[in-house]
């Protein structure tokens, strides 16, 4: 708090997010939190623990797994579920598993099947009617126009032209039969806010966000980390140790690293502030369909 009772921007953001989390728990029948283990998920989980303290958050964590995440992500995921006292549900699309879908051989199909389809299947399987997601409006243009309570049809489609008006902090959580809600409690946070909050609240994050010597190869202008033996090296390709870190985390073969020496949070924030490219630049997913990539994905049911 600053003088004359004006809350700081982080205090206002925190209060807003907690309010959203509680509204959903009060009004939805079966909520769930989508947990991707990234820094945004980490903040969202921390906010949930604050919102319901001393109770544990009254909903499970759902990890829609692709089997291709970084090892360090699986470690933190299991640790956080233990510490928060929440149930952890891990879902892997059985068809993708059976067909051995992977990012090296199947390109965009990898994301479609493991993530988009996997998410739909998991939500249908458990019958969740509200799912928290850690998307932020500053990430991408179509996100900037999405409501905090975003409705999906029974087939999980998003209709950007037909969104409910959202006034004050009054959220209409009433659903039609078959509809479900995606709720974005950290919609109004920016990348810098997330880092600052992690810094001030000591929120645990995956060590991959900090620079360290790691085995890498360079492909199509992206610096990829060789996280396990499944990484198929091309003839002549040899992993090179580089001091790298990640600005966002996803499937390791799809996530580009940056060369960096930032080993502490303030150093990471410093680099973030001085950088000249946006964080999604390291993600292959946005490039799939040109300028409207994410919007198209969302209409198809991607989170």
């Amino acid at each position, binding site marked *: 708090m600053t003088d*004359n009772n004006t*809350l700081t921007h982080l205090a206002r953001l925190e209060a807003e997010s907690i309010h959203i989390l*509680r509204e959903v728990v*009060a009004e939805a029948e079966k909520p769930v939190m989508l947990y991707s283990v990234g820094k945004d998920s980490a903040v969202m989980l921390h906010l949930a623990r*604050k919102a319901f303290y001393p109770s544990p958050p009254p909903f499970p964590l759902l990890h829609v797994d692709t089997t291709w995440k970084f090892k360090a992500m699986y470690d933190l995921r299991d640790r956080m579920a233990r510490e928060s006292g929440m149930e952890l549900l891990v879902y892997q699309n059985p068809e993708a598993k059976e067909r051995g879908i992977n990012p090296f051989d199947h390109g965009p199909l990898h994301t479609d099947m493991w993530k988009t389809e996997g998410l739909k299947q998991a939500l249908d399987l458990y019958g969740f009617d509200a799912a928290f997601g850690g998307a932020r409006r500053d990430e991408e243009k179509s996100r900037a126009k999405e409501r905090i309570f975003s409705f999906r049809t029974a087939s999980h489609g998003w209709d950007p032209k037909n969104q409910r*008006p959202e*006034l004050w902090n009054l959220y*209409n959580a*009433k659903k039609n039969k078959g509809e479900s809600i995606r709720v974005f409690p950290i919609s109004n946070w920016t990348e810098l806010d997330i880092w*600052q909050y992690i810094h001030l609240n000591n929120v645990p994050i995956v060590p991959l966000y900090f620079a360290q010597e790691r085995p890498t190869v360079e492909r199509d202008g992206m610096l990829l980390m060789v996280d396990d033996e499944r990484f198929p090296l091309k003839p002549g390709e040899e992993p090179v140790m580089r001091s790298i870190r990640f600005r966002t985390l996803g499937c390791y073969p799809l996530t580009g690293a940056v060369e960096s020496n930032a080993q502490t949070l303030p150093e990471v924030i410093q680099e973030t502030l001085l950088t000249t490219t946006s964080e999604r630049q390291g993600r292959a997913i946005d490039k799939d369909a040109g300028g409207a990539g994410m919007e198209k994905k969302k209409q198809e049911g991607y989170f």
Partner: protein
Amino acid sequence: MTDTLDEPIYKTDALIAEDIDEYLKVHEHKTMLRFITCGSVDDGKSTLIGRLLYDSKMIFEDQLAALEADSKRVGTQGQEIDFALLVDGLAAEREQGITIDVAYRFFATEKRKFIVADTPGHEQYTRNMVTGASTADLAVILIDARKGVLTQTKRHSYLAHLIGIRNIVLAVNKMDLVDYDQAVFDGIVKDYTEFARSIGIQHFVPMPISGFKGDNITGPSENTPWYKGPSLITHLETVEVNSATDAEKPFRMPVQWVNRPNLDFRGFSGLIATGTVKPGDAVRVLPSGKTSTVTRIVTLDGDLEQAVAGQSVTICFADEIDCSRGDVIALADNPPQAADQFEATIVWMADEEMLPGRPYWLKVGTQTVTATVQQPKYQVNVNTMEHLAAKTLDLNAIGVANLSTDKQIVFEPYEQNRTLGGFILIDKITNATVAAGMLHFSLRRAQNVHWQATDVTREFHAGLKNQKPAVLWFTGLSGAGKSTIANLVEKKLARMNRHTFLLDGDNVRHGLNKDLGFTDADRVENIRRVGEVAKLMTDAGLIVITAFISPFRSEREMVRQMMQPGEFVEVHIDTPLAEAEARDVKGLYKKARSGELKNFTGIDSPYEPPEDPEIRIDTTSLTADEAADLIIARLIP
């Protein structure tokens, strides 16, 4: 790159590079301002926002590269950077070159973080602007210096004022296109001042700017030496935010959720709407009026000594008093009132028009109740601010009307408290948010009319007649056979010594409802009145039989809710339209088909069949007599 793209200046890169810890400390104590920008299609709104983002270095190189490419491909600024492309988000919009929904943007300066609601200027999108304005501390009203105060300027100002924004910036944009002429600026300010006074805007801050060239955005412009006021950013950085004034009001917190992990802990969670609270404070829970003392303010980071408006907290009491979601915790000796009838301003946001008398969900704070709105007292023409007579409100219409709720709600006038005075209306069938509203005051009649308890109860009335009261609610198309079968049912019940009364659609319209026509709104009111009469008759112990088309599910559901559980028996007289039309006993279908009769159910007015009626009568397979026997057998087993 063009010369308009000067070095971004909001962020002191030097401090970040040299002393990140110091920078973080500064950032940690920043406050936040939420504002909206409103302007007509060509006022340069998107360009201004793009400029703010660019100057605050919220645009990265990869985005800038895409922007440069896009600017050349679809931009409207020739070879120059088209900032508008940065903020026109959705693919459909980019092709049309217009913004069509509310979008939120983020940037920060040394002093503050900003959230901008980018709202469109076309008439049909009043809804979006009201939405964007509802969370804003400040509004930037953009004017094209070449065009001056337009109808749209007036509309935007009226809406901003209506929603309670007291900080208004009049940004006279595109000054570069009028050679930075002071006379143009002064003329516009004079015109606007006159208009602003007429709608009650006490204060506004005018400034001459160019979003495209950057004049008076971040600092004083050399092009306007005659302008002595602050630059846009300087003003945004220093103006007072709402949460500061909210903290000075009496304490109110709507309860969102009761936190009860075990028998030893019971806390009440919510976002503090106004005021401050600390352990030891005497508080009152509304609407019950029970009082207690605050013992703890609990958070994950330890108990707080004090909490203020805008914070989400969990509060514990000294006593075990009833308190649940929807209740409001308030300062014990200065609590808000509860009431069930109000005057309110309503902004209609749905394609389907408002139906006076139809029950909607009303959500205010954390309370959700059923509400019905009366015919508007007037509608406001948002272009001229004139009051017009209105029977209903359609999409983007704004009006003032009385409304009543099915139980008391804790409230405060919107002017005093946005949280306890701002509400939304939700359609009970589609679940869409159909309106936003602002409570003005409670109606005195609500405070003075109390329910009079009578000694001869409804159970006693029914006992005297030795029967269980009920409402047999017949619904179906005109000519389906409702009146014929209802009449037979009543005759048979009378022979069995049952006390009955038949309310017939045509007959009621000769007396009680002779002032009503056949519009959707009048049909709703027709059914409401019949429902109330039927309810009184069940209180008197009667078996009531009604025969009305009653075409809408919502109203049948409303009547069901009025009755005691189990007393409402919905009877669907199910005759296919073709069959009813073929019979055409009263010759009405013929008139409707020829256009002589308007709003005829089944022809040019919808019939919504019951989804799960207690009794369904298929008249193509049963005679009227068989149907009547079947209904009686279900009523008196």
